[in-house]
């Protein structure tokens, strides 16, 4: 087990190098010279040379690549071009609002989806199952943007149940700002989640061991909750854990619409301002998160499934 974890940890290195390479190629090679954009049309040659030195762009490409790699390990991303702030500080500030929205929304939507899919699996093939499936597919076919726009307009603007936008970090006030985006998050996730969970559960229901359990005289509900769910949880855990890093990134669009000062909103601002360092930082940060949680989900997988023997 320890050996497996170490081996997986070591495999993170080439993947991180690869991720750095993609980001480096995009932002340092393909992008061309950003100084002209940054300084505007009237920049002198001297200004441009100075700025290039300041941004570390006069270094060799290899040295620039090493800078990218280094930032992936040290989380030292330098300064924003747009706000001139230290990026790591911006990230720390943005993480809390993002998590305030994403964490509760994620937990509620996962539990809710799981409950619905168990319920639907129990009544598989019946009317309610069909109804939920149609509902999921139809729900998934509506653009996320349409949900956000409509919900914001209807519940916040028209009915005035929630704040239209903004953020307050102190407790009860927080809820009136967070509730609506969180509800939209849940509505958006339930479709794909239920669809996936239901498929996984039904895959297990047709296995031979379920027939054995029936031949022992177990009730359908016991078979579902004990035998089937225990097996289905293995892929479900993986699916859920792998989504956790995206919580840090927050919901790009939701934060944008509701003016929540989180990381997602920050990323979009950086996008609009062509603020490369912040974009790079967010790309690296979210990739590192993804890699780490990928590792965690792999380890959980091996813990949850006794069949996998680790050497």
């Amino acid at each position, binding site marked *: 087990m320890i050996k497996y974890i170490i081996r997986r940890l070591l495999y993170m290195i*080439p*993947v991180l190098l*690869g*991720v750095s*390479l*993609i*980001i480096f190629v*995009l*932002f340092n090679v*393909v*992008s061309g010279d950003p100084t002209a954009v940054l300084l505007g049309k009237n920049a002198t040659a001297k200004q441009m040379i100075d700025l290039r030195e300041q941004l570390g762009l006069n270094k060799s490409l290899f040295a620039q690549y090493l800078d990218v790699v280094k930032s992936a390990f040290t989380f030292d991303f330098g300064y924003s071009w747009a706000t001139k702030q230290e990026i790591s500080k911006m990230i720390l500030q943005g993480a809390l609002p993002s998590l305030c929205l994403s964490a509760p929304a994620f937990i509620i939507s996962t539990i809710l989806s799981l409950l619905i899919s168990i319920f639907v699996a129990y009544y598989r093939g019946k009317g309610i199952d069909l109804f939920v499936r149609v509902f999921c*597919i*139809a729900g*998934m*076919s*509506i*653009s*996320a*943007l*349409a949900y956000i*726009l*409509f919900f914001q*307009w209807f519940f916040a*603007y028209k009915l005035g149940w929630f704040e239209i936008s903004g953020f307050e970090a102190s407790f009860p006030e927080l809820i009136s700002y967070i509730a609506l985006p969180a509800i939209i998050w849940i509505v958006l996730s339930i479709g794909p989640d239920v669809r996936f969970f239901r498929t996984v559960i039904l895959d297990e229901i*047709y296995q031979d061991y379920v027939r054995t359990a029936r031949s022992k005289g177990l009730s359908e509900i016991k078979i579902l909750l004990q035998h089937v769910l225990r097996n289905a949880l293995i892929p479900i855990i993986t699916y859920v854990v792998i989504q956790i*890093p*995206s919580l840090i*990134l927050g919901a*790009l*669009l939701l934060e944008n619409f509701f003016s929540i000062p989180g990381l997602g909103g920050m*990323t*979009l601002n950086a*996008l*609009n301002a*062509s603020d490369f360092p912040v*974009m790079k930082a*967010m*790309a690296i940060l*979210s*990739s590192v998160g*993804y*890699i780490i949680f*990928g590792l965690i989900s792999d380890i959980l997988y091996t813990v949850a499934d006794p069949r996998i023997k680790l050497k």
Partner: protein
Amino acid sequence: MNTNSLWKDAFFRLTKDKLAVASLVIVLAYFIIAILSSLGLIASGWSQEVGASNLAPSIDHFFGTDIFGRSVIMKVIRGTQVAMSVGVAASLIAIPIGVTLGALAGYFGGWVDDFVTWLYTTFSSVPNIMLLISITLILGKGIFSVYVALGLTSWVHLCRLIRGEVLKHREREYVQAAAAIGGGHLRKLFRHILPNVSHIIIINTSMQFQVAIKSEVILSYLGLGVQGEPSWGTMIDDAKLELVRGVWWQLAGATLAMFFILLALNILGDALRDALDPKLKGK
């Protein structure tokens, strides 16, 4: 003489599913609209004023007019052209890359497999939305960047699927039998294995097409997508400000257009899986 290839069987099964046939018709209709629009046969006058500003839907103007008095339905049609072209372009980039890499990795194993696995692990480690907005930002706003960005992100999933499936088929006895009669690598891979995993490409494409359409809408909404042309995404962006004034028809038009193609692709994807995936047969 009655002959039934597995493809024919699958098509027959598909045609028995009325919902799937309806979905297929819808998808084809979208393609025809997109082609007609790109040939300039319909909606070519989308940029002309056809009435007053922000007219509500009526018999004359099905989806009303936008702020400049342009017909919303024509904009929806132009948006259809953009969305479908993105789906096609992304598939045209993703399928050759994904299939080639996946097949080579699965078939040859060894260092080829190590390399390809590393490559797709790396690509899938960068969250899709980050990769998409970064690529479009760097390549410059516009529809071409959206094609490339989606092509470069959507090969990953297909590659992983093809690799896994080829790996499985490589050990099957019919491939061993091909080796035993003296067939080389090329024959084994292209004549024997690939036709047996090709259904994966079709099923996956119907899924990736949805992802491409959704992504295009979001990228266009963010101002990264098509420039100077209507897209469902830019229409929704317009609607953001219009909604408070009670102008809902741009949002409705774009959302409905998107809804039907996504719904049809979704249902078709499921039906294709049932019809083509022999694993699920007999269930």
